């Protein structure tokens, strides 16, 4: 039985892996239902009542808060999806069999990122459709697209943060850790309530948080940002570098322990 060493095309492997990741994510209600429903529910409580009223800098407070919860939704998909998803996968030793297969680890990672982006997109579209239909919030088509594009592109540091949690925390600790990290970050960045309604010390520290600059990037798409886009991008790039470093460290530590 002689045959040349042959490997499957990476594109085909990526497609199959992405499809499976998407199926898995879709069938776990803790991910699919939470990431789709929670932002809508929260926006109904915190955002809808302010629709049509003037917000920070004179913009429609409803639109401002809709964008805020869009940022919350994407960040949640990234931090929870990757943080809990990876930790559970490690806990169930799903990584072990994959590791022995010809699936390149980079393709597995890429599939997770693609699926994370798809779910983030879906949850933002659902939220914005709700805000527009139920909340009567009107933005131009270009503005909607701009906000969504910024939310997805700016989520890179949050993906890396999610991976750090996923490779650090055990499957039982990961949900708690993701909540403890993400909810205070989102709150202190003015995502739930506008910054000027938060305690003074929070207002002082907010400009150092990754989620603050992430929200600023999105707010500036509707003209409600407090800093130039370049500053937001620079901060986010810096945080991406930091979290990629922590994620790589956590990944390598785990790989050395399991596969060294």
């Amino acid at each position: 039985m002689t045959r040349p060493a042959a490997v499957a095309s990476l594109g085909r492997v990526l497609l199959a892996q992405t499809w499976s990741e998407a199926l898995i994510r879709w069938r776990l209600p803790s991910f699919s239902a939470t990431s789709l429903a929670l932002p809508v529910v929260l926006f109904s409580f915190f955002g809808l009542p302010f629709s049509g009223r003037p917000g920070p800098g004179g913009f429609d407070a409803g639109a401002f808060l809709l964008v805020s919860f869009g940022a919350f939704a994407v960040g949640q998909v990234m931090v929870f999806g990757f943080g809990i998803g990876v930790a559970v996968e490690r806990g169930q030793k799903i990584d072990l069999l994959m590791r022995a297969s010809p699936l390149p680890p980079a393709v597995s990672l890429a599939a997770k990122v693609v699926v994370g982006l798809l779910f983030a997109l879906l949850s933002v579209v659902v939220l914005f459709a709700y805000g527009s239909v139920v909340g009567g919030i009107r933005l131009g088509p270009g503005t909607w697209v701009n906000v969504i594009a910024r939310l997805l592109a700016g989520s890179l540091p949050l993906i890396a943060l999610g991976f750090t949690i996923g490779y650090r925390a055990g499957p039982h600790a990961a949900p708690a850790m993701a909540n403890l990290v993400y909810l205070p970050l989102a709150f202190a960045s003015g995502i739930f309530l506008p910054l000027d309604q938060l305690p003074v010390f929070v207002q002082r520290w907010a400009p150092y948080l990754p989620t603050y600059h992430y929200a600023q990037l999105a707010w500036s798409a509707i003209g409600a940002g407090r800093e130039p886009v370049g500053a937001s991008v620079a901060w986010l790039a810096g945080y991406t570098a930091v979290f990629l470093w922590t994620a790589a460290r956590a990944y390598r530590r785990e790989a050395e322990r399991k596969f060294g």
Partner: protein
Amino acid sequence: MSVAAAVVQMESARKRYGEVEALRGIDLVIGRGEVVAMLGPNGAGKTTSISLMLGLRRPTAGRVRLFGLDPRDRRARSRCGAMLQESGVPSVLTVREIVDLFRAYYSRPLPAPRAIALAGLDEQAASRVGQLSGGQRQRLYFALAVCGNPEVLFLDEPTVGMDVEARQAFLQAIRELAGEQRTIVFTTHYLEEADALARRIVVVDHGVVIADATPAEIKARVPSKRVRFQTSPGLVPAALDGLPVRVLECAAGRVRLLSAEPETVLRELFRRGVAVADLEVAGADLEEAFLALTARPGSGP
């Protein structure tokens, strides 16, 4: 066998986990089409050996090659399938979905129905993995190991958790695959299983290979039965001299021994007029049998 035809090569492979030296220098060459059983007690180094062959672990010293390549090389991985102990698969996918996913990792996979049929999971193809029983899950891992149409299969304790029927079907599937000139390397605790499938048995103990031979040769060296009886309190061990046995105990009228030929032993005992009461002949467990393979001078067959 020429090294060029080797599927697996291990050269003085050592593996240390912290203070524990799991492998203390394994030399092993496995050629194309061989069906090899790695036999040994718990902690002997079987799983570590398989992990090195698969590139799941790196040797602390020595060299391991798969098809002449680093086992982590995707070209090598694309030619092998593996069934590991303690691995998992996503519980929300169906059998068919996860088999199709693994097939996509390979360039020339088996048709999904064939892989599923080999594993005897036809009726469960549409079931979610989370709904499978322990034995069915084990068969799913087998389907995942074979679905890539691999040239070599590594199976780490494949029959653990299978009931008798599943085990028989599994052995049949392995024979079918071996008949297609695939190389198969599997670990087991059971000499019977190794004997039923393998044409070569590698016995591992304390991280070294202590025997590497055909099943017939190994069986001849392993005293597979335990014989126990009561006799007269005055019987001395010398009364058992010349018998094909390994004496475990002979004191105060109680005798315990291991033998590959209990019938011969009993016939000889009766001929010598040794009193035998409460006779019990049972299959020796492997731990006991290994004592004989690591034979110390002056004892054993």
